[in-house]
């Protein structure tokens, strides 16, 4: 009885410091159904799925094109996106990618989850977490372009329309993460 109340008190105190006034997240299956309906509507209305890294890529290349247009024109991959008069922002995925943080912000605001914080494992300092996040992001960005799509554009979108390559990709992402998870457990546990 005594341990039970202690447990409860500790977890209550934790949740108070971690997410003061923050509403709990939606149940995973419900969130998945909602996300699935969004994904379906994207295909149903526009014929395209969802995306994120593609839009980030185009925004980045758009910026590069302002500074080093010759370099863009001489690099085959970049030239396809922004060579000559081609405007890299004239593509649907750019607008989906801009919508994502806006939607995220509104959802966070309505649920009391707007909070300056750094989520990290208990044994990682804030600075290390920032550095690791940057390095992880770099891997992720590089891999996403190599695979022609990220978790949104390949796994979710390609998975739902049964692209064979997207399913192979999806298993590869999970395999890569699970293979390394044990060795970097000190980062999270």
């Amino acid at each position: 009885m005594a341990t039970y109340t202690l447990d409860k008190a500790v977890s209550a105190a934790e949740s108070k410091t971690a997410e003061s006034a923050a509403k709990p997240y939606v149940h995973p299956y419900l969130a998945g159904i909602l996300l699935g309906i969004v994904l379906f509507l994207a295909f149903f209305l526009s014929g395209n799925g969802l995306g994120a890294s593609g839009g980030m890529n185009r925004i980045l290349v758009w910026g590069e094109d302002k500074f080093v247009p010759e370099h863009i024109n001489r690099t085959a991959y970049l030239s396809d996106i922004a060579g000559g008069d081609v405007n890299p922002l004239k593509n649907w995925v750019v607008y989906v990618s801009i919508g994502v943080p806006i939607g995220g912000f509104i959802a966070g605001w309505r649920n009391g989850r707007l909070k300056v914080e750094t989520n990290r494992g208990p044994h990682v300092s804030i600075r290390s977490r920032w550095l690791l996040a940057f390095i992880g992001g770099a891997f992720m960005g590089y891999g996403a372009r190599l695979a022609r799509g990220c978790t949104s554009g390949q796994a979710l979108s390609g998975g739902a329309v049964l692209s064979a390559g997207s399913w192979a990709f999806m298993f590869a992402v999970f395999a890569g993460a699970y293979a390394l998870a044990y060795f970097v457990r000190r980062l999270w546990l």
Partner: protein
Amino acid sequence: MPPFPLHLVDELGETGSYIVYLLIGFAFGYALEIAGFGNSKKLAAQFYFSDMTVFKVMFTAILTAMVLIFLVTGLGLLDYNLIWVNPTYLWPGIVGGLVMGVGFIIGGFCPGTSLVAAATFKLDGLFFALGAFFGIFLFGETVGWFEDFWYSSYEGRLTVPEFLGMSTGGVVLMIVVLAMLAFFGAEWAERFFGGRPATPKWRYSAAGVIVLAAVGVFVIGQPDTNDRWDWISDEKEAQLANREVQIEPAELLDLMHNHKLKVYMVDVRDEADYNLFHILDAKNIPPEAIPDRIDEFLEEPANTVFVVMSNDEKTATEVWKTMVAESVVNVYILEGGINNWLTVFSDPEGTPCTVCPSHADEQLHFSFDAALGSRHPMANPSQDVFQLEFTPKVKLQTKGGLSGGGCG
């Protein structure tokens, strides 16, 4: 013809279409945030089995979207051939996926979720997003070093049903059933590894609904070429009868010299006739092989004009029907076929036939001393010699929903 997907740019203009995409992105970001995907600890917990939220949300989303998509395509409301199916580049996809997995477990996000995290002031999300930009930048600068690999193991618009040799409905049902077992396993793992999953009763009802819907997809099936032709036959038969899609040889010659277009000539005659003579760059694809090439046709760039040709028009017209029914756009028939082409360009004056030869027997009416193929002078007649007048019929139509690249 199925009313969806909409051609957003035609319906709403460019700006209007971007507003729709912005709203789609908004809903996507909103759903990610309420799922808890702005929190890297929640995402990383996936890989230590104590909180399988990532798996549950992702697969529930895929199942929901998949079942809905193949229900509406089965009912003829949505045209599967007009939605973007990521082309398969197998090994770049797998290697890229492994690299992303490494980034995921080190950084705790994927690109989309890092945007959501940054938008809710999570500093690790912000650093991750900056890192992602850096990785994307690095890729643009280095892909030139291994371009051969990046374009390797290309399988085109390969789908799981095609790969497994199963019906679409069968694959949908199989994936749904396997996912249910996987969810059961995930909940068990969570309890085993010290997590406390919320297990509301309604999830059984939800599972029941989705399995029933998948059975529905299986029972309804997907439309075949004949069904697809029936949707559009009235309109398309009229086009054939009014000769709106049969282009004169002179127009084809003009198209071949139009550098803004890609002319894809499909020569459906038998190999012997093709070897005797064919128009420069025409591809020999027998009619029975056309269905297998549809995916490839659908992936051609938007400025592609297909011209189907046989010795006369009969076989070409049948192939045209198949291609049009499968939603390939900008498909035309060479008027009078190869016989007419040879008639027109064998006369130095290039008199166009007023009454086109109507031999419907699909025989080549010219004899050749040797199988010259496209080395024959008439395979690529000079436009300077043959300055012919023609009634232009080709109107370039942009593709419906397809605008390339999920994360393109």
